[in-house]
């Protein structure tokens, strides 16, 4: 699926060229992708034979939805990287604390 963004050029703080908003069609395609991934997650849920193999599959699918929303709906793809830095820093710290908590209580370890 080709994602094309409207090009509205402007100078950013570092002299970078910023792209503008995606078109409403792109937003709609992202929404359909999110729905399709959710449907796939629910369908996979009913495949009992997967066993523990379902964990990485669902994690990857959820991560894909997370990234789609963050990049296109929250405009991280088109905005300054400093915004991404602030968000990702908090996210990485949250994941590390999460893993540390699970390790401390020997959950999944």
């Amino acid at each position, binding site marked *: 699926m080709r994602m094309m963004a409207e090009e*509205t*050029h*402007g*100078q*950013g*703080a*570092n002299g970078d060229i*910023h*792209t*503008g*908003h995606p078109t*409403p069609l792109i*937003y*709609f395609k*992202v*929404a359909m992708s*999110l*729905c399709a991934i*959710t449907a796939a*997650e*629910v369908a996979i*849920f009913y*495949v*009992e*034979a*997967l*066993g*523990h193999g*379902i*964990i990485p599959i*669902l*994690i990857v*699918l*959820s991560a894909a*939805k*997370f990234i789609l*929303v*963050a990049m*296109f*709906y*929250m*405009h991280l793809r*088109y*905005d*300054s990287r*400093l*915004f991404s830095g*602030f*968000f*990702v*820093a*908090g*996210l990485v*710290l*949250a994941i590390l*604390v*999460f893993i540390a*908590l*699970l390790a401390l209580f020997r*959950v999944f370890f």
Partner: protein
Amino acid sequence: MAHAPAIAHGAEHEDTTTGLNHRKLLMWAFLGSDCMFFGTLLGTYLVYQGKSKVGPFPEDVFSIPVTSTSTFVLLMSSMSMVLAYAALTRGSMKGFRIWLFSTAILGMTFLAFQVFEFREFANHEVHFECSTPLSELTEYEKTFVSQCTDASVVVEEQHGLTPRTNLFGTTFLTLTGFHGAHVTLGVVWLLSLFFYSFKGGVRPETNLDVDLAALYWHFVDVVWIVIFTVVYLFGVFPGI
């Protein structure tokens, strides 16, 4: 009707050290910190998962079809939110109000699903016929099998799930309750913007106000994406 020229996004240069708007930077910092908040709640839920002494347990109360529907509703609200912002930057106030109101309605629909779900959990009833094979009962239902004096008996007892029932109730309802509170605040924010737009307070030139609300709303959606997978799907998957 002629629309105002599209307002460039990301092309503004603020008179700050970073060249970026401070309010927007603060919103991203807040969202990063909110990741920490939900990360700890989710971690606490997983630490205590499977450690409840009494039921009901996730497989007794969760309904994946219902939760999938509410997840779909929230995903669509994200789409309508971004379309509202796009309409505003294009100068279409009518389009902006329609999509913004749609987002608020979808958000309230999601909250209605949550209220319905929590009520169902609180009024959960253990109900099965004693003729039912043991393999078809959940672990919690099996604890009531001793009441089956013969196959014709029907076990029917109310055992609701509240924050005080067990560890599962405490951690699950705290996590989803805080998420619901975030959604509620988001709905209030969106409706405020909607009504404020009729007083001329929201204009294409001041689209940052809507951008900030949109970021918050998308974050709430992203958190639910994680909760739906980790809590609901992993929680009741029979193969694990």
